[in-house]
């Protein structure tokens, strides 16, 4: 009986191998982050190598870099722009994605097939940077924050994920609401959306990460018409190279 529970020698080697690799992976993941973190807390009068800096005792850390950053007007401006792009971007993206995904999920909707093709073509064929840039200039959006999030707001991929979530919702729920006299709008607002919180959060997170991390769009829009306002939200990404 005991032999069945006790691990064989080869199994112990296996688990040692797995645990050791995970420790190694953990070290590879932590060291770069730790070195960057300690670098940011390094006092101005610090003498020694970067390796010494990594092992600097926490009570010798200094917040001088952070205080300098918060006192920097252009940083505060950039951070404000980043937050605005984040919130306005996610709100705009969900505003356009949810109805589209919902319409595509209704099997009996006349014209659904056509709508699907219209959504799919831009997913398959991307004309590239310059035609988009021309559109932004034509709409007079250059130097406006909307130019950063509006052209790329709706991701077809995310729309299709949301559509398949809506399709999974039990049809009976919607049907029973309709029998009780609910309009299609009520079905969407009172039945579908409350049940879709997980997918709204997930897709919202995807969009949020995209907008928060996007620096090439602000950069590409502000290079040509480099007004001070535009450059400031590009500030973080265009910091001087070492």
């Amino acid at each position: 009986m005991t032999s069945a529970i006790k691990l064989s020698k080869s199994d112990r080697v296996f688990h040692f191998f797995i645990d050791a690799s995970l420790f190694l992976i953990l070290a590879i993941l932590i060291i770069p982050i730790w070195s960057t973190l300690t670098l940011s807390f390094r006092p101005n009068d610090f003498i020694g190598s970067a390796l010494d800096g990594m092992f600097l005792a926490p009570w010798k850390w200094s917040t001088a870099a952070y205080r300098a950053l918060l006192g920097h007007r252009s940083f505060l401006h950039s951070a404000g722009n980043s937050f605005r792009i984040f919130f306005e971007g996610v709100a705009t993206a969900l505003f356009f994605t949810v109805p589209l995904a919902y319409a595509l999920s209704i099997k009996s909707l006349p014209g659904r097939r056509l709508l699907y093709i219209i959504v799919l073509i831009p997913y398959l064929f991307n004309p590239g940077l310059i035609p988009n840039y021309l559109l932004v200039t034509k709409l007079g959006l250059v130097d406006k924050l909307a130019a950063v999030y509006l052209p790329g707001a709706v991701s077809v991929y995310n729309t299709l994920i949301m559509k398949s979530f809506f399709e999974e919702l039990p049809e009976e729920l919607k049907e029973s609401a309709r029998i009780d006299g609910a309009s299609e709008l009520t079905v969407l607002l009172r039945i579908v959306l409350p049940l879709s919180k997980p997918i709204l959060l997930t897709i919202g997170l995807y969009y949020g990460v995209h907008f928060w991390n996007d620096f090439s769009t602000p950069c590409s829009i502000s290079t040509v018409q480099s007004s001070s306002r535009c450059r400031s939200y590009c500030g973080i990404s265009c910091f001087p190279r070492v």
Partner: protein
Amino acid sequence: MQSVASAKPAPPSLRRRIKRYKSVYILASLSFIYFIIFKYIPIWNAQIAFRDFQALSGVVKSPWVGLKNFSDFVNSYYFWELIRNTVFYSIGKMVFSVPAAVFLAIALYECRVYWLRKTVQTMAYLPHFLSWVIMYAILLAILSPSNGILNDIIKAFGGEPVSFMTDTRYFPWIVILSDMWKETGWSAIIFLAALMGIDPTLFEAAGVEGASAWQRVRYITLPAIQPVLVMVILLRLGTVLDAGFNQIFMLYSLPVYSVADIIDTWIYRQGLLEFRFGLATAVGLFKGVFGMILLMLSNKLIKRYTETGLY
């Protein structure tokens, strides 16, 4: 029997269905207008690839030049360089990241030490949420010739500091390995999900038969991952022309252009920095058309293999 069949309601007429979904149409029409403006007008604008674009004349009034922009691109010396770099980075990242993600998923699945599993999992997801701007700062903390850790170690052993980021020998490795560091954890999720779906009775049966842990991985775990693995590889091959614009755009500099420049970064520089809109659009169109063909091909293969395509 017949009466039951006839009691079935006839499908509502087209007009009634349209009327019923009126509010859905109104809501979706906003998204429809968005698509026309922001997805279809750029496709219309792409015609400047066939024109000698002049900003004052605009899109439709610039003179036609036929395929001149395309032949300029194909005959230029950088054509093969761009294609080579783009494909090299896509395939290189796949070769390193996909096996790493499979290994990580299996290791996390097999690990019996709870805190270790949870810590590695969280730490591995984290870098996906960092932007390449932050990644650049992290890479500098390690690779900078003046105060990077790696160069500190080289100096401690009496070597000369190396300027990794501007050296054509090291730059491709920095791109591939930094992408691996950032994305492996995130790409492991899909494999981990496939592992969670394995029927536990398979492992019980293997245990009764006296299979070792290695054999379990070889004959149960790996076959369970295989369909997902094929799908991931096909998907990556479908987007082989997207080699990671944000990453290269952030990391590269003039000394490494010859090994770093991919189609997207080249379009950016030619179009927005040197105002050669027609040429840059032609290259974008070239990429768009081949990208579409590859994507449709990979979707067809995925459909054949797993019976569920992307679209």
